[in-house]
Each structure stands twice: as structure tokens, then as C-alpha cells.
């Protein structure tokens, strides 16, 4: 038993030692092409991380400048440019944004570098009402997420 513990510790230490070297540009479109062609959010998440099980905590996600109806549904006036703010304090490896309103699910994937504050804002398009999910892949290997349901008054994918 002790030997086993020792072995697993060594492997863990090695993994830690290797980690900083992996902080360099990653093109996830080439690395994981299946993520970008997946039509369903679950499929895209699975293609990216191998599982859809996430912990719903530690991630802040807000769709800015939208009116909140009763409940947690937010309505964006213009689906062509919905501002999204998201951040996390969890030490992260990657952060991915998905939504389920458009033909494909993936929006973007960040590779977190050592200077990164993991605080971002982007503007996205949504053709229909749906929900947005931000997934943070922590350095501990766990997946953390936050979800925001969005109503869209005017579709963003119309010409």
C-alpha cells in the first residue's frame, strides 16, 4: 500500500512538473475538430472534455445589458450581439463556452496562461432562445460550470 502511494505521488509530482511547459498556443479547432461540428451542447462538451459531468460552482456568468424577466430568464434585445461576462477564481487549464440555440454548440475555447486573470467578456450571436454554458477545466482535473438561460427578441443568425 505504501509503495502504491509513493508511486502515485511520484506520478502526480511529474505531472505538476510538466504542466508549466504546456502553456503555449493551442488551436482547439485543429486539436479537437469534433467539438466544433457537434450540434448538441452535450455532444460538444463530451468531445471537448470526455464527460458532461460538471460541478455547478465557482464560475460567474452574466449576460450583460439584458432585461431580466421574472425568474432567471434574461431577454436580449438583439440576438446578433449578446454581451457575456464570465470569470472564475479557480486555477484553470481551459475555459470553454457553449450554447444550445445555434446549429453548432461551441462558441470558443480559451487556453489559460500563467498571466491570465480568467476574466473575460465576449459578444455572441444566438439565433433562438436557449442557454449558454461556461465550463472551466480546473488544474485539479475537475469541470466547473455556470449556465445562463437567454431569451432572444431578435435572432442573430439571420442574414
Amino acid at each position, binding site marked *: 500500500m505504501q509503495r502504491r502511494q509513493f508511486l502515485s505521488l511520484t506520478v502526480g509530482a511529474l505531472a505538476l512538473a510538466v504542466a508549466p511547459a504546456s*502553456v*503555449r*498556443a*493551442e*488551436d*482547439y*479547432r485543429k486539436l479537437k475538430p469534433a467539438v*466544433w461540428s457537434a450540434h448538441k451542447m452535450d455532444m460538444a462538451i463530451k468531445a471537448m472534455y470526455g464527460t458532461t459531468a460538471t460541478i455547478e460552482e465557482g464560475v460567474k456568468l452574466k449576460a450583460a445589458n439584458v432585461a431580466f424577466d421574472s425568474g432567471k430568464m434574461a431577454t436580449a434585445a438583439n440576438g*446578433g*450581439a*449578446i454581451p457575456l461576462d464570465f470569470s472564475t477564481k479557480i486555477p484553470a487549464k481551459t475555459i470553454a463556452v457553449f*450554447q444550445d440555440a*445555434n*446549429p*453548432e454548440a*461551441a*462558441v*470558443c*475555447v*480559451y*487556453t489559460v*496562461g500563467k*498571466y*491570465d*486573470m480568467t*476574466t*473575460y*467578456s*465576449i*459578444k*455572441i*450571436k*444566438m*439565433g433562438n432562445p436557449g442557454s449558454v454554458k461556461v465550463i472551466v477545466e480546473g488544474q485539479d482535473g475537475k469541470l466547473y460550470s455556470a449556465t445562463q438561460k437567454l431569451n432572444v427578441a431578435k435572432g*442573430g*443568425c*439571420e*442574414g
Partner: protein
Amino acid sequence: MKVKAKLKKGVVKVKAMAKHNMITYNQAEKKTGNKDDANFITHVSATCNGETVLDMSTSQFLSKNPILKFQFKGEIFKKGDKVLMTWVDRKGKTGKGKGKIK
């Protein structure tokens, strides 16, 4: 690409805008009947003094002329340093921009 960067309390906040139409597959099919005419930014990166401070792969669902905001630790950076940003689109075209940290 327009880049604005500001150093405050040890954090550099960057706001950038890429001028790009971000045509989705659906829009391309509607306009020209050919899905392959879709063109959108697929990768954006930013560096400061040779250090990578942003690295993202993107899809067609960023808005037209997408605005990106991000923050990075300012410890080894100072005012006057330049933030360089580059994007690449689906057709292989690249765009560049730089902004001095204020």
C-alpha cells in the same frame, strides 16, 4: 484590430475589437447557396513582451466585429509595453493590432 490596454492595481485590462463579418454557415448558405463561403475568426491570440496573455479558439457564433475583453496579471508588465494581438480566419487571412499599456 483595435487594442486598448490599461494597467491598474497590478492588472492589465484589455479591450479589443476585430473588424470581421463573422459569416456563419447558415448566412453563407442563404446568401450564396454555398456553405463553404462561411468565414469567421477561428483563433485569436495576444502577447506582451513575448509572453502569451490570451489564447482562444473561436467559432462563427461570436458577433460581427467581435469585441473581446480580457485581463492579465500586470506584475512583469509596465506602462508603455505593447500588447500585440493577432487573429486568423477560416480562409487563412490574418489581422493584427497593437496597443500600448496606459
